[in-house]
């Protein structure tokens, strides 16, 4: 049953029809212009996919809080904004220095590919050849060998993603394509940077970067995705990342979201794990006015390992929502999940973590932990762990805690001479440190620590910084 027919049958209204008609129509009109404006023709299957996606979006509209998956996050501010697609070249004002601010201050040693407003910025990228490793623009692959992407590109929307993923499927122009050949252990980490510019027009801009990562059999790689914007810029980054780990592959992934304070960020990451593959993810949601991140993982065969770590830190009126799904569809897989939230001001946080152990997935071993730290009385967090076990002979546990700074610990530090503001910040950093500490790329770890420190008062003192383990 589609949401639209639910409304027809007198169920709870799922959206305001008058409002969504104009919204979805606007995107349809945009879509026609987008399709007409394309200089090089796309393969028929892709055109069909885009058509289906925009039709689905028109049918569903933006999600509303009446939907279970979106009950804690209203996207009305996104729905009512008339975004425009920036013209090619509008983002040319983004310079190396702007990227460097989010590129871990030059300390990052590895491959870097940069996209501005969802399009490749070759001048800002630096990739060195490494044993058959491919890091390139998705648009490039689409124009030269589209068949390579066919099986991947259609996949996300069939996974039951939201209508934001539909919009991405309809409108994406570019993004990163990373292919690690079987057996290759990539030496240097790969940094995918998605910058949003201020644009040159009046309205907020929108981009739909699409990234596809294929880690071949037995390959090994570290990938970092950064999402950031020029300070003050208002935009929506609507990203979809698809990751496939073939049998025995190992991928350590890191998402660092530092969007501008006026920005919206919607990210959807789908991960499919082959036999005995190992996926490790560290997700940091630090910026943006309204951010929603979905991680949808699937064990598509036996013996896989998955570790999902995450931290969100919000203040003021920021809103950060994370939904994760770990799908134990096969036996003998292990998953570990640790998500933490730090909330100050009037901010709002959401963590919904679902672990699904399907029938027959015996010897599943799954742990999930969610911990939240409230630094103000007005901050609010919703934590919903969901464990669905349909198999026997499994080990599963989850736990969720939400609390304030430990007043006994605070007094203990102060009683030794640490000023109150520094003691508070030290405890906040200590709370974050077991998530941040798992990042194994030194420059990325240092960059996240620096970002956190800059948000916290009283941590300018080097000695206090050193006290964070």
């Amino acid at each position, binding site marked *: 049953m589609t949401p639209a027919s639910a409304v027809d049958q007198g169920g709870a209204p799922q959206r305001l029809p008058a409002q969504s008609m104009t919204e979805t129509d606007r995107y349809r009109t945009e879509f026609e212009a987008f399709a007409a404006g394309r200089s090089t023709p796309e393969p028929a299957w892709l055109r069909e996919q885009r058509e289906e996606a925009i039709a689905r979006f028109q049918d569903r509209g933006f999600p509303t809080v009446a939907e279970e998956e979106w009950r804690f996050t209203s996207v009305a501010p996104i729905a009512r904004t008339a975004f425009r697609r920036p013209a090619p070249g509008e983002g040319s004002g983004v310079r190396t220095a702007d990227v460097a601010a989010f590129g871990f201050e030059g300390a990052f040693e590895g491959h870097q590919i940069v996209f501005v407003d969802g399009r490749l910025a070759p001048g800002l990228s630096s990739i060195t050849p490494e044993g058959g490793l491919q890091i390139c623009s998705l648009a490039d692959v689409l124009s030269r060998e589209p068949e390579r992407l066919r099986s991947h590109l259609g996949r996300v929307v069939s996974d039951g993603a939201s209508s934001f993923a539909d919009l991405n499927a309809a409108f994406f122009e570019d993004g990163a394509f990373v292919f690690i050949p079987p057996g290759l252990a990539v030496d240097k980490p790969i940094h995918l940077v998605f910058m949003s510019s201020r644009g040159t027009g009046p309205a907020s801009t929108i981009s739909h970067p699409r990234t596809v990562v294929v880690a071949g059999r037995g390959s090994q790689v570290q990938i970092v995705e950064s999402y950031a914007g020029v300070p003050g810029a208002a935009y929506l980054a609507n990203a979809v990342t698809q990751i496939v780990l073939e049998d025995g592959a190992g991928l350590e992934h890191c998402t660092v979201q530092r969007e501008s304070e006026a920005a919206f960020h919607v990210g959807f990451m789908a991960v499919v794990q082959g036999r005995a593959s190992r996926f490790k993810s560290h997700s940091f949601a630090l910026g943006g006015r309204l951010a929603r991140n979905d991680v949808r993982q699937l064990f598509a065969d036996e013996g896989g390992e998955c570790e999902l770590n995450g931290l969100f830190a919000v203040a003021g009126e920021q809103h950060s929502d994370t939904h994760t799904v770990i799908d134990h569809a096969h036996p003998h897989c292990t998953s570990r999940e640790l998500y933490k939230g730090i909330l100050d001001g009037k901010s709002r946080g959401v963590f919904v973590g679902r672990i699904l152990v399907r029938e027959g997935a015996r010897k599943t071993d799954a742990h999930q932990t969610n911990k939240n730290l409230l630094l103000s009385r007005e901050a609010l967090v919703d934590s919903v762990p969901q464990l669905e076990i349909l198999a026997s002979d499994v080990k599963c546990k989850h736990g969720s805690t939400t609390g304030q700074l*430990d*007043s006994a610990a605070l*007094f203990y*530090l102060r009683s*030794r*001479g*640490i000023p*109150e503001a520094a003691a508070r910040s030290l405890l906040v950093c200590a709370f974050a440190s077991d998530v941040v500490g798992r990042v194994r790329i030194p420059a990325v770890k240092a960059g996240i620590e620096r970002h956190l420190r800059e948000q916290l008062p009283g941590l300018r003192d080097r000695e*206090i910084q050193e006290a964070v383990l």
Partner: protein
Amino acid sequence: MLEVKDLHASANGREILKGVDLRVKAGEVHAIMGPNGSGKSTLAHVIAGRPGYEVTRGRVLYQGQDLLAMTPEARAREGVFLAFQYPVEIPGVSNVYFLKAALNAIRKHRGQSELDAMDFLSLVKEKAKLVDIDESLVKRAVNEGFSGGEKKRNEIFQMAILDPPLAVLDETDSGLDIDALRIVAGGVNQLRTPERAIVLVTHYQRLLDYIVPDVVHVLLDGRIVKSGDKELARELEARGYEWLEASAAP
């Protein structure tokens, strides 16, 4: 060094200290004894500035300054140290680096030069020996996973590093077996100097066999009802507190 005058303090609206008077000079060790609930820990906490207590009357002077007007961190920088009865576990915060930050804040306040990492680590080595605490232990997160005895030793280790003119030791003997007690007491004894005043808050006389006090006070129902020399502690051990309770009545 420390002068407590007619101190009244309450917590959650209940008066706990009901007029405490105490004078401690540099070089002296004073023991405050009393049964559970007599206000011993409250006195220690009020001196250190723990939030949650309301001082309704009286004064606390430290080196002639109004201690009650200062934040806990300002008191620490002036040289007041509290060894906690229940040292707090703080995951994610390095014991030794937080201590380095604390020590240098104090040294800066005293007009001394700050210690660099090398000097500080040799200080750590030296002071760790004092309470026979493993160096690898003090480099871990603050008290995390420490045994009861290790936590108490860490408190005295911190005291040795920070070198405070006034140390208040809150039930430092509680939960220690006899060997650990000897080690902790030995550490404290080495920190007895003519410049330092020490206030020992304790429930049992046992600790005072190892750290011999100059003065013993009995705190009952929020007041010091009797003061004497170390013989008073022995008498309390033999007779209990009941015989003093008559004098506690207002």
